[in-house]
């Protein structure tokens, strides 16, 4: 297995934030169909072990490229930047304010036990998520502004957390 190959090369995709999801999915299935240990059930231990390493690597690569935050972090790492490093925490004050407001809205929806409010909030958060993803694509693929891209990745991670919190409140209200 060639570990110097990037995940993009592994799936035969261009190294970019904008991703053809259908192509990634198809390439993932094709690769797993080729390397998965179950394909080598009748084969000796060496083949099994190699298959296990490959299948693990292909899963990791797929999870990384599929997920918007992980893909951003990975692309920046290829540029030598650790977007999630503990000392890399710059965040625009406007975003922080917005994030606090969202958090309050989640608390309000929880207190009011309002599924309608949650639905609306969930829609807003997803729209914001898509907006940041588009920015990130622009910053990485076109502007090559990796410092700004790092911040966008961190914002996207905040959005994921908020969306997960909304999920928790749904669960609370449903039970």
């Amino acid at each position: 297995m060639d570990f110097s190959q990037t995940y993009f090369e592994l799936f035969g995709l261009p190294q970019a934030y904008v991703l053809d999801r259908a192509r990634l999915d198809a390439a993932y299935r094709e690769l797993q169909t080729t390397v998965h240990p179950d394909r080598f059930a009748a084969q000796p231990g060496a083949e099994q072990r190699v298959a296990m390493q490959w299948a693990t690597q292909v899963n990791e690569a797929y999870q990384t490229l599929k997920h918007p935050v992980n893909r951003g972090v990975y692309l920046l790492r290829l540029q030598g930047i650790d977007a999630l490093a503990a000392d890399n925490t710059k965040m625009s004050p406007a975003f922080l304010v917005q994030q606090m407001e969202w958090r309050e809205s989640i608390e309000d929806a929880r207190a009011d036990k309002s599924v309608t409010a949650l639905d609306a909030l969930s829609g807003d958060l997803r729209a914001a998520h898509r907006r940041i993803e588009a920015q990130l694509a622009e910053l990485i693929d076109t502007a090559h502004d990796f410092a700004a891209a790092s911040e966008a990745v961190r914002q996207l991670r905040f959005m994921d957390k908020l969306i997960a919190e909304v999920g928790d409140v749904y669960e609370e209200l449903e039970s």
Partner: protein
Amino acid sequence: MALLQIAEPGMSTAPHQHRLAVGIDLGTTNSLVSTVRSGLAVVLDDEAGHSLLPSVVRYHATGQVDVGYAAKSAQNSDPHNTIVSVKRFMGRGIADIKDIASLPYRFVDAPGMVQLRTAAGVKSPVEVSAEVLKALRQRAQAALDGELVGAVITVPAYFDDAQRQATKDAAQLAGLNVLRLLNEPTAAAIAYGLDNASEGVYAVYDLGGGTFDISILRLSKGVFEVLATNGDSALGGDDFDQRIFCWMLEQGRFEPLSAGDMRLLLTKARDAKEALTEHTEVRVTAVLSTGEMMDATLTQAAFNAMTAGLVNKTLAPTRKALRDAGLAADAVKGVVMVGGSTRMPCVRQAVADFFRQTPLTNLDPDKVVALGAAMQADVLAGNRAGDDWLLLDVIPLSLGLETMGGLTEKVIPRNTTIPTARAQEFTTFKDGQTAMSVHVLQGERELASDCRSLARFELRGIPPMVAGAARIRVTFQVDADGLLSVSAREQSSGVEASVQVKPSYGLGDEDITRMLKDAFTHAKDDMYARALNEQIVDAQGLIAATRAAMAEDGALLDAAESAAIEAGIGALERLLSSPDAGLDHHLTIKRGIEALNAASTEFAQRRMDRNVRRAMAGQKLETFG
């Protein structure tokens, strides 16, 4: 007599014999064993023609053990020694069992799993399950007339590591080689998907006797990809029985019940529940050992009302699974119903309302899991070329570590596709800290104390440094059975420690060895012969496969590399033909196998690289062409 077998064209690549493999559905209430015969999955019946084996084990003071119907018929008369629904206790401590007060057993609070005191001594749930598995193994060997190479055993998708490990231990104790622990809904999806040539997103709703699973899968060109799974490993048909049982107590206002009467009423409750599948009301009568009587009518409406909460409890995990899959209910093309409890009309109605479609009930909900397991066993035993379908399953619960302040740090999130490996770096908290305790957790909660503790181990010998300077890399690895192993390594010094996660809950290797010894009373020679035979068969298989690979792809190797592999083959062949060199001959052969495997690893890697290049070249043509 065994008939000669002729493979279908393209069915098998290697010119070897059909290897006997089975799928086992080890259920809370009933268990089944099935196999693939002439390309078709079939459930194997016992001599009396029963497919289902009640998962009931009765221990006699004489040491005799009854399993199945014989045991089930004694559950009222001998409740302490007749264990039903033991699956609910697998990998569980006494505190985990909610309804302990209404169970007629003599529980023993053991440091590992809860145990049960019977006339034949204290038994672990692993031993009880092993009796069920042993009965199924014997049934299969009688029906197939030969030794099994292995079994695929199904487990609820929502089983955690402790429950999976306990199941694997039970299989080992029953003398079964486990080809794979397979998630029940995934097994059902194989049976259903292959039967109906389905494509698209499907949900499998699996409500058994004691467990509930929901899995969302995408079926595409023979790939079964689990997108998300959720569930409740302590919710099932037994809980519906309990509700009727409570209703009976209200109706009858009985004196405190004896264990026998308790079991009698629970049995009556189950009968009433089953009758309500077909009828709108049922008359419930019972005469207790005290002479007290009950005679009352239970309507379907009353039953639905008293169990609505339970039905609702299945919908919360269903919503969660859909959310994790990033899908809305209307993206689901079909809902496959699995497990005997999905026969209840109230359950079917709730599922139909939730997904806004009629659920699929055309496969026998009791058999579909075992059939799917048999199909996968056929692949894993090497009876098929293996290019018919592929399963990509996930872990149901997040895996992580305890960090400072008793918090959980997730290392592998739930619904990650297996096999998987992930590493995370940690550092020391104090100046000069030379040891680090690693506490492995499973669950979604933020506090470590709210998650299940899987294992603890220590990394010692870290060179003294200032706090925060050490770099300790902890690697989690989950295999295709969903079982975890963890290792830790200090990066600068290379100090290492690792554990195969044997849950703090559960049995250690010594326990298994002791039980194996108990089981094989006239043992040592048998076990030795068995171990030797296994190694010889493995070695012969390895030699044949390596030769075949050399003949096919020898061009990938230079002369020296070919010679090294040939030497490994030669060495292993000499071991096989040498006279039995004593009781550890099987270990010598095992080392020979490992040596040949090591010698051919580079060759295996090159073959795989070549296969990947070929596959991806085809992929590009397809995409652009």
